[in-house]
């Protein structure tokens, strides 16, 4: 296989930190050191609008809220995390654009969609979430959109709940990490939160009666854990067999598998725990260390949602690497064994610059080769966002 560049967006004026694809629309949000978020079209690979004015310093992280607005009046909601120690909530109605998508034939639609977006700049900076003492490093919405998690160099992870319109309440301040918290991510189905840190650990949290608490500590990395991502559960397996991938300054990418959880039916035979504090505890075990692909800090890792067992990573060495899980014969017992291999690599993905973020996204453009195709989106220090397809050759 080969990673083939489809195209790139015009460079932003400063370092681009992260790009997030919209959960249902062909939109991409990219945040930058220039204190703005750029919204681009995944149909045409062109910039549509720029969100600015809400933050005083670099915007480090951006996340789309899932399941927003009723079907007949869709709304897009973005959360941003900034070095100015705040998080922001931005809103915008998508109603008109949906209409355009459905009422025009394809060629026309591309143009109209773009034009329409340029005309109306209606992103509204709705709320500032204050509370962190220093830079907010990452923001993430829970699967149902009811919770927002933020993390900061102040070593804490906060969980916010939207009580009613634009009213966010802090429902948990988790101070488990001993250092800067780099990343927060939610489980794709459960209300299970994960954070990774400069203290080399990953911690998982969930709600215990009415308090949020740490339910697992994942140790093994020997330096800062920069990014984490949950695997989308396979319907056949159920979420009990959840896996998490992590990448680190120690130049490794590791896979962690949940081996026991109190509320999962597969472990019903486990004797009930007497101590209430143990009732939410989960066991997570490191089950794989992916083949080494990087020579400098690995900044981002992403689990492909359409193709289980496929991961992409990027780092300070400017490289993108795609890994796949294969089933191989284990010689001694004739049993099947899983093994990860690098299936595609590209060096200098952003010229001589570092790649800060990589993710998979549904493909929407004209070049789509098959239903359910995913593309890779990389975001770099050169301010560029590039789109890549996985070519089978």
């Amino acid at each position, binding site marked *: 296989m080969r990673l083939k560049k489809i195209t790139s967006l015009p460079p932003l004026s400063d370092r681009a930190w992260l790009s997030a694809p919209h959960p249902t629309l062909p939109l991409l949000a990219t945040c930058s*050191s220039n204190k703005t978020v750029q919204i681009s079209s995944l149909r045409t690979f062109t910039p549509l609008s720029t969100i600015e004015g809400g933050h005083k310093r670099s915007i480090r992280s951006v996340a789309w809220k899932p399941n927003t607005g009723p079907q007949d009046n869709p709304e897009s909601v973005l959360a941003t995390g900034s070095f100015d120690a705040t998080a922001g909530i931005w809103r915008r109605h998508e109603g008109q654009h949906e209409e355009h998508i459905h009422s025009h034939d394809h060629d026309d639609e591309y143009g109209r969609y773009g034009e329409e977006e340029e005309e109306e700049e209606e992103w509204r900076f709705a709320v500032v979430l204050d509370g962190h003492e220093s830079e907010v*490093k990452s923001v993430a919405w829970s699967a149902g959109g009811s919770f927002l998690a933020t993390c900061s160099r102040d070593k804490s992870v906060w969980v916010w709940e939207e009580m009613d319109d634009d009213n966010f309440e802090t429902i948990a301040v988790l101070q488990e990490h001993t250092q800067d918290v780099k990343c927060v991510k939610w489980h794709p189905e459960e209300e299970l939160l994960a954070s990774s840190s400069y203290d080399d650990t990953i911690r998982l949290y969930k709600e215990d009666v009415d308090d949020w608490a740490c339910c697992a500590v994942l140790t093994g990395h020997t330096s800062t854990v920069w990014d984490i991502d949950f695997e989308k559960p396979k319907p056949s397996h159920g979420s009990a067999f959840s896996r998490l991938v992590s990448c680190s300054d120690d130049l490794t990418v590791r896979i962690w598998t949940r081996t026991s959880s109190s509320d999962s039916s597969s472990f019903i035979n486990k004797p009930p725990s007497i101590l209430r504090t143990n009732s939410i505890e989960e066991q997570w075990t490191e089950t794989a260390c992916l083949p080494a692909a990087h020579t*400098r800090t690995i900044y981002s890792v992403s689990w492909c949602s359409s193709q289980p067992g496929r991961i992409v990573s990027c780092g300070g060495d400017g490289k993108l690497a795609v890994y796949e899980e294969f089933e191989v014969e284990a010689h001694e017992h004739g049993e099947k064994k899983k093994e990860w291999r690098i299936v595609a690599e590209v060096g*200098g993905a952003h010229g001589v610059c570092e790649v800060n973020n990589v993710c998979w996204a549904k493909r929407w453009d004209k070049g789509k080769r098959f239903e359910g195709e995913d593309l890779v989106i990389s975001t770099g220090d050169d301010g560029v966002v590039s789109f890549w397809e996985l070519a089978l050759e």
Partner: protein
Amino acid sequence: MDNENPTILNASDLPSRKRQIKRRLPSGLSNVDMGLLSSIGPTAEPNDPFSTGNVSDPLSSGEDEDSDGDDFDVEQIDEQEIYDLISTISDPEHPLSLGELAVVNLPHIKVTDNQDRSVMSHVLVEITPTITHCSLATVIGLGIRVRLEQALPPRFRLDVRIREGTHSTADQVNKQLNDKERVAAACENESLMAVLRKMLETCK
């Protein structure tokens, strides 16, 4: 003040470029260059602009024309170049430069400059704090990083580290200095940048 009485090197003893030889020769010609230099022998005065002119001019005007032009746009970066960029940074608490205080030393700089400009190159700077518990080691390291990030072409990846055995919390300082997110955030911190600007004022 952490160290009231640091060892100070004489400015004239600090390493500087001894010969002003143009380093723009394509790699294929470096052997010829060396040959010509050695034939002139030790009697040639290294600082004499005349002798270096005689050596390099015929070469560069003669054979360079059809060689790849790209390499000439960017000068090769070497250890002395890096030393010159950072040794003139002022210490945050002494009225002296990092070179004079021997915080920055030429033998502790490693440059791997890739001939191919489309590929990353690498600079490693190991600093020696004046005392092992210097609380300003991180600020000094950050000053060096910022100076090099501003001065060097973007192809360079920088690693600024405390020289082994010279600081009590070297691992912590190293981790912080090489965390790009922490460095980026520090560069948006006005009070810290004011300190760094003061340190960099003495740079040419």
